[in-house]
């Protein structure tokens, strides 16, 4: 019992990768690294009135490279069953989609995987992406609805920003 306590609780507090965590140098290293990596959310709000198409883009921050790790969409007060399809495009990047499907196939990009299961839920999320982009990268959101559809939603593209300037 005591051995288990020691292994589970005490060692995990005191040791990191087998070495004792007891030095200011270790602390400095943690802080130094933490300053150069941070989470970031890029959010795009879109509104579609009476079946119109919608395109909007967002540009990632200068001097920080961006790695996309998670994408989600939330439909605000849009009737279930009345949600349009959305595509996430990366202009000038091959492949243009993190979802490994041709962007030319309208709606297929996220529709089979993330956002396009029309009308099933108000919140859909795609985890475990790992899609390395660059600084000042343009992400385009396209939404297309049927005539008569009204929708408001938010696409959230989450990831890590990395400062590579000191490498």
């Amino acid at each position: 019992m005591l051995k288990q306590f020691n292994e589970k609780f005490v060692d995990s507090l005191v040791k990191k990768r087998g070495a004792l965590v007891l030095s200011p140098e270790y602390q400095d290293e943690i802080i130094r690294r933490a300053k150069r990596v941070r989470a970031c959310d890029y959010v795009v709000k879109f509104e579609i009135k009476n079946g119109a198409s919608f395109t909007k883009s967002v540009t990632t921050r200068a001097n920080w490279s961006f790695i996309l790790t998670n994408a989600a969409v939330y439909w605000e007060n849009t009737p279930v069953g009345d949600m349009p399809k959305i595509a996430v495009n990366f202009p000038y990047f091959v492949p243009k989609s993190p979802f490994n499907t041709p962007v030319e196939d309208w709606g297929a990009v996220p529709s089979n995987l993330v956002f396009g299961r029309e009308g099933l839920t108000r919140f859909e999320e795609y985890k475990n992406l790992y899609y390395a982009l660059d600084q000042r990268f343009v992400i385009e959101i396209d939404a297309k609805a049927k005539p008569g559809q009204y929708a408001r939603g938010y696409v959230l593209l989450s990831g890590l920003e990395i400062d590579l300037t000191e490498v």
Partner: protein
Amino acid sequence: MTSAEITKKVNDARETQKFEKTFDLVRSFVAEAGKADSFTIPLTNEGPFIQESYNIRYTENSTVQTNPDDPATKKHFCGTKLKFKSQAAGNAQSSDFVPVQLISTPGSDEKPRYGARPFFYFYPKGDALVIDYDNRAPESLNGEIYEMKNETIEICFNGKIYPLND
């Protein structure tokens, strides 16, 4: 393990906390109906705070009636949007306001939520967390009727403090 070994382990753990210790920063606030506002929470002065994740819980006091002619379509929802910012860094952690539904934990549709949303962020010693909120009624798209109410937002920021001995 001998008594002496146990004592040493405990002392090592205590010593370790001089350099690194876990920390939960818990705050709740009321997002007032029809208002957009901002407030600042000072973080610890012990040393830098490295945020690893956060939990958000919210009330759904506001209502929306999706069909203006049919009161049966009235339902509760939370229309609050949030934006976090490190005062020292200056720039926000999101490019715009994010609906709480997208960042409360974990992502799931209309179900009770449990867990934490990973969000790694470095706050230097003496930094403050700025929280912007927007609880104004969305523009009506198709005649729907909004009635905004005060919403209580509870947030727990999880991370570690690295105490500095200066």
